[in-house]
């Protein structure tokens, strides 16, 4: 299968079940809401080293937020509800509570809840105030610029993490341009985040290592500097660089739509734009329940 001269490999992305929540951060203006959201979703590229994977879903106009201020919608994914709860508490406490003028609300309904203000209220040292409005509990925690308003808890949903696209290009610059297009197209969709820097990861990994202590190591099959060195190398002489986009979504359909949008944007660059091939990462299908076949998605 080829689109615009770009080869679509007959393979699939293997994704995993995760737990996710959405939170709405608001601030006195769009800039300060964004500062809080960026701090909260910073260093949240991979559950392996960061505890969670988080990103900004979209910005919200004042009419779209609970308190009528500028806001940012944030999605956070973790491997278990317990870990998600820990990450929400830590990150709201360190990044949102601390940001001037901020407030944070649940962005997902549902019976299964993750504590948000439930623990953080104790920062108020007894001066915190509870308000139940329309059956929802909020905490007003006194801080040095006024009050930090935080909802008691946020909804949790079963979600999917680890959808991915790997693409090969003639040069690093051409790979990067294609990646930018793909991420821009994917960001237009709701319910998904691309957790890596700018949505893109260049250090794809394989399972295992020659060092016993390491669970994962560089994906030598796609490293251009290991062409002719590693037996596993998949790169022909024309490939200059390989990049990957990882996508997490609230449902398999969300991940699949995002992968379609991303792969479509990459293919639009075409062979003329230096893109050679689009493939995807999997572990033989044994680890993850969700398989996204590239050719089906792009059919």
């Amino acid at each position, binding site marked *: 299968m080829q689109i615009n001269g770009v080869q679509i490999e007959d393979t699939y992305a293997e994704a995993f079940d995760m737990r996710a929540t959405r939170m709405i951060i608001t601030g006195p203006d769009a800039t300060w809401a964004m500062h809080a959201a960026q701090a909260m979703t910073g260093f949240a590229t991979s559950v392996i080293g960061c505890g969670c994977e988080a990103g900004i879903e979209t910005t919200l106009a004042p009419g779209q937020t609970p308190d*009528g201020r500028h806001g940012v919608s944030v999605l956070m994914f973790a491997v278990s509800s317990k870990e998600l709860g820990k990450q929400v508490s830590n990150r709201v406490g360190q990044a949102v509570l601390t940001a001037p003028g901020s407030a944070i609300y649940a962005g997902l309904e549902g019976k299964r809840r993750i504590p948000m203000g439930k623990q953080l209220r104790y920062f108020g040292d007894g001066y915190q*105030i509870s308000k139940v409005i*329309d059956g929802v509990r909020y905490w007003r925690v006194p801080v040095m610029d006024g009050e930090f308003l935080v909802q008691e808890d946020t909804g949790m949903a079963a979600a999917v993490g680890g959808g991915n696209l790997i693409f090969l290009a003639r040069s690093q610059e051409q790979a990067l341009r294609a990646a930018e297009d793909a991420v821009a197209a994917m960001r237009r969709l709701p319910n998904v985040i691309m957790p890596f820097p700018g949505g893109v990861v260049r250090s794809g990994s394989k399972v295992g290592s020659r060092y016993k202590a390491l669970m994962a190591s560089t994906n030598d099959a796609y490293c251009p500097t290991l062409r002719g060195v590693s037996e596993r190398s998949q790169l022909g002489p024309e490939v200059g660089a390989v990049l990957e986009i990882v996508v997490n979504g609230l449902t398999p359909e969300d991940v699949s739509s995002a992968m379609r949008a991303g792969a479509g944007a990459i293919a639009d660059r075409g062979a003329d734009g230096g893109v050679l091939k689009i493939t995807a990462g999997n572990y033989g299908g044994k680890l993850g329940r969700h398989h996204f076949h590239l050719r089906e998605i792009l059919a």
Partner: protein
Amino acid sequence: MSALTLRLRESMPAAIDVSHLVPERLAELGVGRIAELPLWCGSERLRVDEVFEVSGDDTESLVFEADAPTLQGVGYRMARGTITVNGPTGAYCGWKMRGGKLTVRGDAGAYAASGMRGGLLSVEGNAGDFLAAARPGERYGMEGGVVLVRGNAGVRVGERMRRGSVLVEGSVADWCAARMRAGTIGVLGDTGAGLGWGMRRGTILLAQPPELLSPLFRENGEQRLSFLALLARSLESLQTPFTDLLRATATVRRYVGDRSVAGIGELLLLDGKSLS
């Protein structure tokens, strides 16, 4: 289906206890057997159809037609559906109400919304004394839900209240929010003496400065409080001037008390003016 309507046949000298006539209990019973239900009028035991003309069949939408404030305990523990009273009610209207909507197209008697936990009580006339207050010996007054009074309310509004919102578009008499534990009380008109006396937590929203305020409410300055926007949004469907007032309010003048009991309750002046 038309609303199940109970029209009072004639004025009774004694209070009529209608506390068992609520949608979820009538639905269990079926329309046919409602007429024969017992009904206490003072110390006399009568049947529903001896006191009311019964018509209609929708038990989820119950209507009382009464021209005297003799119906007692309207909507007691009601959990769903609607009850409308075309006329005044006696005491304990909305007592321990848990959900649904109770509308009084007239005045409500004493202890309306006492022990209320959920739902909406709307009084289109005035409310009597002890609105949303604790009964003697009870630990708390209102514990949830929303009360909207278009007219005035009597003494001790929200005494010992601990959750929910009471909005009075007119004025309230003395001891409003006395010994309040939490929740929200809003008043557009005047407030009497003893406002917030012994209040520990909770919010009093005032459209105009109170004539009298205990010096044990401490001036807390001008504040910008995000939760007021959430409150305004939650009141949207009620069509009350409180919504626009809250929307138009960027900053409030805040007083914290009652410090005589180390309280951190708050009195918010929505017009932003300070006490003169």
